[in-house]
């Protein structure tokens, strides 16, 4: 494809206006270089999760994901941990060593990424949970929390785990988060990312190695082998691997003392959130067992698995909420920024029903309507803001947002009151001067 020079340059600047560290000319070259590789992607611009690294082979066809019977019967006896010893690294001469090398490189980038959430308290909280679940493998796994508002977590073959902020927003308690963390650790212990990488290399040989080579030089190859090497994602293993990781997950979480009965619930919540939108559903069904099948299996396993301590297991709702609370507003705001309104609306309704800091949820629900701006959305926004003000912890910004709608409608008295309330509740606001100026300009 030939892009006119001018348009290509602007795209480069578009990305570079905020990204990377090369000059415009160099990047354009980089893009040209990557083009033939990216052409192998089957994902489209509309793919709801285009960064997930869903597997494709170089012909552009999807790699077969359901490779037949894995021998898993749904019994807990099928899951034993024996593949990887704690502290083990692959032999330097092996295929797997090259996969680890690529992953190590990606990890160095991840550690400094702009979207890393670096809050030490939250990192310690999630890392401690991972440690508890991973047991002897604790030292082999490093956790990175990234500010990406999707339901996802990823596991690299070298032990780098990325936890997406969108997962934290969706888990309702420690046991539900443990469900996904355990699932990812299951992928790690069973070396699923390596298995899949090897499978892809075997199928595609020459070009695949070429891609591994270029990936090692730092050229990102989305949706192909390098992604598989660096990111084993919730969204990208085949169905058998997913079933297996679910099984391991239940075993590991119960062994760490978490209630395995919460495991089916996080999928139940996701099912409700996805609703009937075919677009959001197709992505999950492509690589995952149907959610109902998954729930049935998880329920059966949960009944069977012995829980550490002999009791019903830890759910940890209060502790989880306390850990998340400092980040709650930004988690909600990031969710709104996805502009996937129907899905976000369903999620927010569920969070409101759940009851944790509903004032903040109502506020962001209002922000979502205000941002969408369809016919009638301003009224929906006002109703949500009003609901938010009924809670003690309503964010001061609710009053500013309400003031904006009143201002636009020419309801100057109401606008002035709302803005004044915002300043009263947040005297240190960075936009105080602006707001006071706006108040001054409002007639009666």
């Amino acid at each position: 494809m030939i892009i006119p020079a001018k348009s290509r340059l602007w795209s480069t600047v578009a990305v570079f206006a905020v990204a990377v560290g090369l000059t415009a000319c160099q990047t354009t070259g980089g893009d040209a270089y990557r083009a033939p590789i990216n052409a192998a992607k089957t994902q489209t611009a509309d793919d709801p999760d285009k960064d997930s690294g869903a597997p494709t082979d170089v012909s552009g066809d999807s790699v077969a994901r359901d490779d037949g019977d894995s021998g898993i019967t749904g019994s807990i006896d099928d899951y034993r941990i024996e593949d990887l010893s704690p502290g083990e690294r692959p032999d330097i001469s092996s295929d797997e060593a090259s996969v680890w090398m690529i992953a190590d490189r990606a990890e160095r980038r991840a550690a400094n990424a702009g979207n890393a959430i670096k809050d030490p308290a939250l990192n310690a909280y999630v890392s401690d949970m991972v440690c508890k679940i991973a047991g002897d493998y604790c030292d082999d796994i490093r956790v990175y929390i990234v500010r990406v508002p999707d339901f996802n977590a990823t596991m690299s073959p070298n032990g780098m785990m990325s936890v997406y902020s969108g997962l934290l927003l969706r888990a309702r308690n420690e046991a539900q988060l443990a469900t996904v963390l355990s699932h990812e650790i299951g992928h790690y212990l069973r070396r699923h990312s390596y298995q899949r990488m090897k499978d892809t290399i075997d199928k595609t040989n020459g070009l695949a190695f070429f891609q591994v080579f270029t990936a090692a030089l730092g050229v990102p190859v989305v949706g192909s082998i390098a992604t598989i090497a660096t990111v084993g994602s919730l969204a990208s293993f085949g169905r058998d691997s997913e079933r297996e990781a679910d099984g391991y997950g239940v075993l590991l979480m119960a062994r760490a003392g978490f209630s395995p009965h919460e495991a089916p619930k996080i999928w139940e919540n996701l099912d409700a959130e996805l609703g009937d939108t075919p677009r959001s559903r197709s992505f999950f069904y492509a690589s995952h067992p149907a959610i109902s099948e998954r729930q049935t299996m998880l329920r059966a396993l949960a009944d069977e698995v012995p829980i550490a301590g002999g009791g019903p297991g830890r759910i940890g709702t209060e502790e989880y909420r306390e850990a998340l609370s400092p980040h709650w507003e930004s988690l909600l705001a990031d969710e709104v920024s996805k502009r996937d309104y129907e899905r976000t609306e369903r999620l927010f309704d569920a969070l409101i029903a759940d009851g944790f800091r509903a004032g903040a949820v109502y506020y962001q629900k209002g922000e979502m309507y205000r941002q969408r701006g369809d016919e009638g959305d301003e009224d929906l926004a006002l109703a949500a803001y009003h609901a938010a003000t009924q809670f003690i912890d309503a964010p001061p910004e609710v009053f500013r947002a309400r003031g904006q709608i009143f201002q636009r409608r020419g309801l100057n008295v109401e606008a002035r009151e709302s803005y004044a309330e915002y300043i009263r509740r947040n005297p240190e606001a960075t936009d105080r001067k602006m707001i006071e100026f706006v108040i001054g300009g409002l007639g009666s």
Partner: protein
Amino acid sequence: MKKLVRIAALASVLALAAACQGYTLVKGGSPVEVGNAMKVSPERSWSKLTSGKYEIWTVDGPILQQILFASGVEDGEKLFPTDAQTPKTLPEFKKGMTELEITELYRDTLVQLGGTQFEIQEIAPKTIAGKQGFRFEFTFATKEGLQKNGIAEAVLAEDKLYFVAYTGAKLHYYPKNLPDAEQVMGSVEIL
């Protein structure tokens, strides 16, 4: 990174030539029109890229520091020129937006283009080109974690938005040309 640069350079002889044609010189010392709707009087020289009513000016390269001009954005238009590779979800300017909504418009544009950690430090009214506008200061980071600073000024005239933002790497490049950028922003006239 060095290897990446080398590969990019090797594989891009043609692209390089094509891409570099886009820049033209803005000579310091005389007034110049921006996007047919604004005029500024830069004291120093800049390199510029033009796409309709949008221009980007830079000294060392747009990643290091740049001024973005959006000159007379109308209802339904965006703060950034769109082409095949910019996200289709860039938010649109709407007639009647409040000042705060314009800051949100810019924030969302930046985030859609790959920025993160956007935070407004200060926002205050300011007279721009003899009209009542406003100015805000902000910080953000690139996906790779490069910290950036920025200032932006905006004014509405006849339902059109005139928007100028100066951004740059927090370390060295932003402060280096901040006085030049302030000078340019202070000279804005609406045509």
